[in-house]
Structure formats: structure tokens, C-alpha cells
């Protein structure tokens, strides 16, 4: 065997990963792996904890999307204690979860991904980052920083903590929203909606049109998709709905979150701490073979945009129609994750405004009575990085007996490995590689926002 290239750490992503590219004696790619380097054991150390405490412990899985874990965990605890939040508690949870999507998308697109497109994949590494964007385009950068901050502070102001939240509780929410808070948030949400429409337009012109050739080839693989849709009309949902698992040919099955064990399995490879979820219900096993993958589906923005029948808000629906007429359904090109991300940004802003206009949002009855007891609950939400599943069982005292988690990012570990191998094989030939080529391999990973 020839040379092994180690890209470590994979940068401008949230987690800890390393890419190893193995070259054969002729300098062509023999194999490529992306290993997840971190193992913390959340499923185990929540055992014995009182279940109502878990939603404020489990958030530390991810400091970028803590609201997602916070909400999914609360849903699971509700299930264990057999409690249903009152309408205002349900609405406040959805509002905060959807608002948290806004910052996440601004952060990923402009802070982490955009340097590759706006400054170019071949820009020197020392400037190919958000600091480089601040210097090259101070006006755009200032607006982006302000908008992300506005989104974070809206949450901080109402719910105390934007990072590692505590305000959702089993049975509902810790405090009602008063009307002056609602009016303030509504004003700010409108500013964010204007920005999201601008961001989508900006990206269409300066990223997607400009890089259309790269989008058509870099990291492209063919897989199925998993997301959440409205139980009644199949429209796009982030907070609640049924799960939809689509095959690459566009056919799909729908199922309820608590049936996930019948549809999803987790495969383990010796070279990555991250487990690899796959579609167990397809009965074809697991394979990362680029030409004949088995059991491989993707989650996160592109998957959700593919599985939904329509977007439930007007501007997002218009954007989806344009996207579908250009790329079809399901769209497979990996870099389209960025495009789908910005469509979701528009949806999240529109949905925030919708929820803030509902009368129920200021109702004072936000938490149902809770009695700790034995039971099982499965909580599912769409996290920015994919379908997030928390599955808890409690003992008679309402403490955690067993927990199983399928975290959003992990759905894409198998496909990311495929995209890395596809990109590396396409770009590295005859032992020729350089910084730009290796950065392009990483761009195939960054699209997934791991």
C-alpha cells in the first residue's frame, strides 16, 4: 500500500473528525474513511438520574443545537410519565425549537461553509474563514453577525439561556409568555425573515449559480432520505409529525417515532466511535459501496426538503418549487444541502412569526401536572443535522433505567464516508494532491454540517 493522507482535524465543523485517504502504489485512491473521534457515553451516565433532570443534562451532547436535545428529551420524559403538555406549553416548545433553527442555519452557512464559496476553495487557509469574510466583506459580515446575535438574544431574553436551555420542562414549559415579550419577539422575527430572504437571494446568485458545476459533481452519491412531515398533509415539519423514510427512487414509507426500532438499525465500524444508522426495514443490510450502497439514507436539510410534499409557509414554498424545478425530487447532489438549509431558514422565520401571532402563545396554562413513574417515552424532533430520537425507560421512582439515543448527525456518518470517498477518488489521481484538493474533500463533509 502507498501513502496515507491524514486530514486532521476536519475543520469548520462542529464535532471531532479525521479523514484518512489511502493511496495505492500508483497514487490513486484505494479507500477513504472519516472517523468520528469522540465518545462520551451520554446513554449510560443518564441512568439513575431523575428523568425530569435529564432534559437539562442531555443538552451537552451539542452546544450548537442544545434546544433540539432539550425538547426531544422533554418529549421522551412526557412519554415516561404519561403526561401531555397543555396547548400553550406545546406551542412555546415549538416556538423555541424553531427559533433555535434560525441561528443554527445562519451560523453554518455564513460562518462555517461560506468561506469556501465566497472566498473560494483555493483561497489560502489562513484567510479562508469567517475572519477572512469580515475583512473582505465587512458590510455583509456585520449584518450576518448582527442577525445571528439577534436570534440568540431573542431566545436568551425570553428563556434565560440560549445555550444549554432549561425552560422546557416535562409537562410543558417553565413560564408563560407575556404580551409585551410576544410583541418584541414578533418585531425581531420580522427582521430575521427579511434577512433570510436576502440570504437566500444572495446565495442563489453568488454561490449556487456560480458553483453549479461543482455542485453537480463534488461528493455526489445516491441514497435514500429520512425526515419528518405533517401527519395530515405531508408538509414540512420540524417540531412534530410522522417520520418519512424515502428510497432513492422516491418511494417512501411513513411511521411514528416510537416505531423507529422497526425501521432503523445502527451499524458499527471499528474505525469510528460514531455509530452508523441505516434503513433496517429495507432488508438489504449495510454497505458503503459507492456503486451499490445498501441501507444508506441521509438526514438533515436536503433530506427534509426531499421527503416533504410541500413547505407549509408561503415564501419557503415558493423557494421549494424553484428548487424542485431545477433539481427534481429527490435531489441527490450533496452541496445542495446548503441550498436546502437556506430554504429551511426562510421556513423557520415564517413559522416563528406564525406561532407568535397565535392567541394561545400567551396563555398562562403552560405546564400539566406531573407524577414521576415507570414507563417508556420516545421523543423525536428534527434537529438541524437530522432526525433526533431520544428513547427513555423509567423505573417506578421516575428515574432513568435505560436510554437510547439516535443523534441527528449520526444518520449522515455513512453517507459522509461515501461522499468523502467519492470526492477523494475524483480529485486525487496519480499521487497528485494539494491543499485545495484536500479542502474540496472537506467541502463534501461540510455540506452535511456534522
Amino acid at each position, binding site marked *: 500500500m502507498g501513502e496515507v*493522507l*491524514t486530514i*486532521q*482535524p476536519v*475543520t*469548520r465543523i*462542529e*464535532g471531532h473528525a479525521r479523514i484518512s485517504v489511502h493511496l495505492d502504489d500508483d497514487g490513486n485512491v484505494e479507500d477513504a474513511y472519516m472517523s*468520528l*473521534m469522540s*465518545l*462520551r*457515553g451520554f*446513554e*449510560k*451516565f443518564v441512568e*439513575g*438520574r*431523575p428523568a425530569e433532570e435529564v432534559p*437539562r443534562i442531555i443538552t*451537552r451532547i*451539542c*452546544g*450548537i443545537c442544545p434546544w433540539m436535545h432539550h425538547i426531544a428529551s422533554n418529549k421522551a420524559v412526557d412519554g415516561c410519565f404519561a403526561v401531555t403538555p397543555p396547548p400553550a406549553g406545546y406551542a412555546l416548545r415549538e416556538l423555541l425549537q424553531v427559533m433555535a433553527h434560525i441561528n443554527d442555519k445562519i451560523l453554518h452557512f455564513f460562518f462555517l461553509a461560506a468561506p469556501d464559496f465566497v472566498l473560494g476553495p483555493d483561497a489560502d*487557509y489562513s484567510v479562508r*474563514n*469567517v*475572519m477572512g469574510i*469580515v475583512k473582505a466583506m465587512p458590510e455583509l459580515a*456585520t449584518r450576518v*453577525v448582527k442577525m445571528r*446575535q439577534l436570534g440568540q*438574544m431573542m431566545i436568551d431574553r425570553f*428563556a*434565560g*439561556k440560549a*445555550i*444549554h436551555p*432549561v*425552560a422546557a*420542562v*416535562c409537562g410543558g414549559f*417553565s*413560564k*408563560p409568555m407575556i404580551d409585551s415579550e410576544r410583541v418584541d419577539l414578533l418585531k425581531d422575527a420580522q427582521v430575521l425573515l427579511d434577512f433570510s430572504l436576502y440570504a437566500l437571494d444572495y446565495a442563489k446568485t453568488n454561490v449556487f449559480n456560480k458553483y453549479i458545476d461543482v455542485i453537480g459533481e463534488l461528493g455526489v452519491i445516491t441514497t435514500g432520505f429520512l425526515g419528518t412531515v405533517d401527519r395530515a398533509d405531508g408538509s414540512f415539519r420540524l417540531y412534530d409529525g410522522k417520520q418519512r423514510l424515502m428510497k432513492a427512487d422516491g418511494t417512501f414509507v411513513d411511521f411514528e417515532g416510537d416505531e423507529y426500532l422497526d425501521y432503523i438499525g*445502527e*451499524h*458499527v465500524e*471499528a*474505525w*469510528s*466511535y460514531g*455509530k452508523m444508522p441505516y434503513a433496517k426495514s429495507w432488508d438489504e443490510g449495510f454497505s458503503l459501496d459507492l456503486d451499490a450502497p445498501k441501507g444508506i439514507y441521509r438526514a438533515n436539510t436536503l433530506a427534509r426538503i426531499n421527503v416533504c410534499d410541500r413547505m407549509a409557509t408561503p415564501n419557503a414554498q415558493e423557494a421549494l418549487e424553484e428548487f424542485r424545478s431545477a433539481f427534481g425530487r429527490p435531489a441527490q447532489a450533496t452541496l445542495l444541502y446548503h441550498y436546502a438549509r437556506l430554504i429551511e431558514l426562510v421556513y423557520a422565520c415564517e413559522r416563528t412569526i406564525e406561532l407568535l401571532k397565535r392567541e394561545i402563545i400567551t396563555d398562562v396554562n403552560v405546564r400539566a*401536572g*406531573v407524577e*414521576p413513574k415507570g414507563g417508556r417515552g420516545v421523543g423525536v424532533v428534527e434537529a438541524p443535522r437530522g432526525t433526533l430520537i431520544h*428513547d427513555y425507560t423509567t423505573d417506578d421512582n421516575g*428515574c432513568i433505567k435505560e436510554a*437510547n439515543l439516535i443523534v441527528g448527525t449520526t444518520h449522515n456518518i455513512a453517507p459522509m464516508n461515501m461522499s468523502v470517498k467519492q470526492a477523494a477518488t475524483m480529485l486525487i489521481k496519480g499521487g497528485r494532491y494539494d491543499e485545495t484538493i*484536500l479542502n474540496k474533500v472537506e467541502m463534501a463533509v461540510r455540506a452535511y454540517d456534522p
Partner: protein
Amino acid sequence: MRMTAAFECLSSCSGCEIAVLNIGEALIPILTECLDIVHAPILMDHKYYGQCGAKGKRLHIPEAAIGIVSGGVSNEEHLEVLEEMRRKSRVLVALGSCATQGGIPALMNGQHSKESFDDVYRTSSTDPGATRPDRIVPKLLDRTYALDEKITIDLQLPGCPPNPAGILEVIMSQLENREPVLPTKSVCDTCPTRREGRSEGSTVKRFIENVEFDPEKPVGDMRCLLEQGFMCMGAVTAAGCSRGGVPACIEARVPCRGCFGSVRSKGNQLLDMMNALASNGIDVTSIVDRRSIQRFCGAHGNLRPKKKTVVKKGA
């Protein structure tokens, strides 16, 4: 005023890095005029083994005037990165509660870690027969450590997450070559809730019902949550979380769980909390899970696995 800076995150969640970004607009002049960031995996592309990944086996991080490390130390790679950061940073800052006292991931220190980590690969959705990965991935240490258990730290900035104002103060103090001014009081000392001097009931309530308060009135009108009978750890916890003058969790009308760590240097939040409750006439045996009280400070030997019960055969 310019200085070089390097950032690293070890066993962590990226929440500390988001807290850095939550400095907000004030961050723009810092990024353009004050800091030359030479290494920061979450934001820029400097690599450990050369930009083409073929430069030797020893990881390399450039020298920096200030090094900021989040996360605890739980595997061999964390240790290697931390030691390199120590070698290359003039001033090394431990950022966030994982770095200063272990944080949530150090709850694993209360488990028999080998069995527990193996069990992660035996859950209901995992393929039968799977075993814990052991190729390419870094080997786990025997437990999760706070940074100062492994190297010398110059500045500790706890919090889960740390307060953006505190992070800004640390950066500015280094730029201005002075000592940072950071909070020294307890959460209680900075909490505006109303205290009447006696607690309701003699047991600790689980947080399965909301606290009593009038949502139309400011937090200062709400009665102290400990006095309302809830476990609120403000008395034994370092302040620093407040943004608008109210501790962050109290703003959400939720009791404090002690994320900034002990208010006393090398203090023990569990023992201090037990004392505080007992001296208020509260029956500490009514607490369902005492280990939860150590959830942010499981390093430094505070959390250890329970002794295994020996089952005598034929007894």
C-alpha cells in the same frame, strides 16, 4: 494592541465556542484589529499534521500569546493536544465547566467506564454483536479529567456555557496586560429573588411542578426558589451567569443546578449543599439522586464509580 490566539476544544460540545460568538458585534473589531487567530478548528483550517496531512507524526499547533481550551480530557488525543497547547501558549485559559471541573461528560466518572462504554455499542438499535471501535480512534483514558489535573492553567473561566461578558473580559485583560475582573460572589448573592428567611416544608421537591411567580412582575417579586422548597444550588455556586442582572436559570423561573462550580476555591458543591439544606432544617434524605448535585464537577475525584456489590455464591 494585537496578539496571537489559539483555540482548542477537547471532550466538549462546542457550546463554549458559541458563547464566544455570542460576544456579538463587539467580536468584529476584536477579530479584525486585536486577535491573529493561528489555530481554531471550529473556525479555521489550520491542521495538526501540515496542511496536506503528510508532515510527520507529531501534532503541531503554532505559538500563541493566549491559548483558550474548552472541554475536559478523556482520551489520548485530548491529552496530546492539551500538552501541545500548553507548550505553545504564553497564557493558557481553561474555558467552560468541562475544562475547569469536568462538566457534564465527567458524570461518566461515576460509572465503571469500561463496561459502560462497551454498553454504548449494545443498545436496542445497535446491530447485535457490535463491539467498541478500536482502530484509528483515540484510546480512552481511565476517566475524564479537568485541565488542571494534567497541566498548569493560568486562568479559569467556568460556566456551562461561560458568560460571553466573562470571555470578553479575559481577552481584553490580556490585550491590556492586566488582571481580569471576574465575579467572586455566589449565585445567591447576585439573585434578586425575595427571601423571607425560612423554607416551606422540610423536604426537597422534585422539579415536576412550576415555581410560584407572577409572570407580569419582575423576578425580584418572586420568592427564593430554595425557600419555595426546590433544590436550588445558588448558595454554593459561583456567580457569573447573569446577563440582565438575573442569574440565567432564575430568569427562566427554573432553579440553579450549579453549572459555574463551587463558589469556594476547591469547594465541594455536594457537601456544601447538604450543609446548607440541613442548617435550614431540611431532610437531606429526601433528595432522590445526590450524584446529580455533582453533575458539573465530576473531575478532581468528586465522582467515582459505586462499589460493586459482591454477590456471595451459596450464601
